[in-house]
């Protein structure tokens, strides 16, 4: 994938990735987490800001370095790396808010052609998973490596 993104760091299990968002609000440490659902090869993808002074993270914070596309490109790269190791894994992602989900939808739509080189992409709409199409409004996303 050919978009600007942050340098990722990861532990050997590739279940957590870290990177630092840089911008007008300074350096913000971010984490990307893949969490396995019981008894199936599905993983939840979540990411957010580290809470200063602790080892906790917040996925609802609105720290804005005006770099959301770069952040999403960085997250997409983490998914690529994770699914390279876990080839049969399905990765599901939802936004913590409706507007966040819409941001993801916009980002995926913008880069759909390139993303579809690597992934099968589905959107969750009206209680069904449907093959994702550009600008399709949906509540969640599901991807698997081709």
């Amino acid at each position, binding site marked *: 994938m050919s978009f600007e993104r942050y340098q990722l*760091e990861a532990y050997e299990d590739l279940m957590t*990735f870290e990177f630092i968002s840089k911008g007008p609000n300074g350096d913000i440490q971010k984490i990307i987490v893949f969490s396995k659902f019981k008894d199936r090869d599905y993983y939840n993808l979540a990411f957010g800001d580290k809470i200063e002074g602790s080892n906790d993270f917040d996925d609802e914070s609105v720290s804005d370095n005006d770099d959301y596309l770069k952040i999403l490109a960085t997250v997409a790269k983490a998914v690529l790396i994770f699914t390279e190791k876990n080839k049969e894994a*399905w990765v599901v992602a939802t936004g913590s808010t409706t507007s966040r989900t819409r941001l993801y939808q916009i980002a995926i739509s913008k880069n759909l052609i390139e993303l579809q080189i690597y992934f099968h992409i589905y959107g969750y709409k009206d209680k069904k998973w449907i093959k994702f199409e550009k600008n399709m409004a949906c509540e969640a996303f599901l991807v698997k490596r081709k």
Partner: protein
Amino acid sequence: MTEKENITKNSEIKDFILKTGHNPYAGKVFFQKKFEKAESILSESLLPDDPNFEENLSTSKQSDSISSIGLLIKNTRIERNITQEDLAQKLNVEKSLIVDLEKNPQSATMAFVVKVFQVLNAKITFDVILKP
């Protein structure tokens, strides 16, 4: 994938810093709300790796008379509660042929289409309308 895409992909996959030592986040629960929301969605929906999952047609696709035969086959099959795999077995063909037939019936012969409907215990009729 083209060679260029393959090279790009491989360099992407290796382009991260591997941290040594124990993962301090292992076993910890982060983003619990999101996890529960996703879990709820997964439990209430038919997932793509389920044998009965059918790839839904795009809502923006227009159906022409040929494509609608594929839809008719699919809908009849679903009505009969038969998977693509089962139908393929009954017809003694590969599943991929049924998948293709439902999406792109153009290449199928009329005889085969009729046979499919027979296996589905359905009758297909053709209506000819003369244009002025």
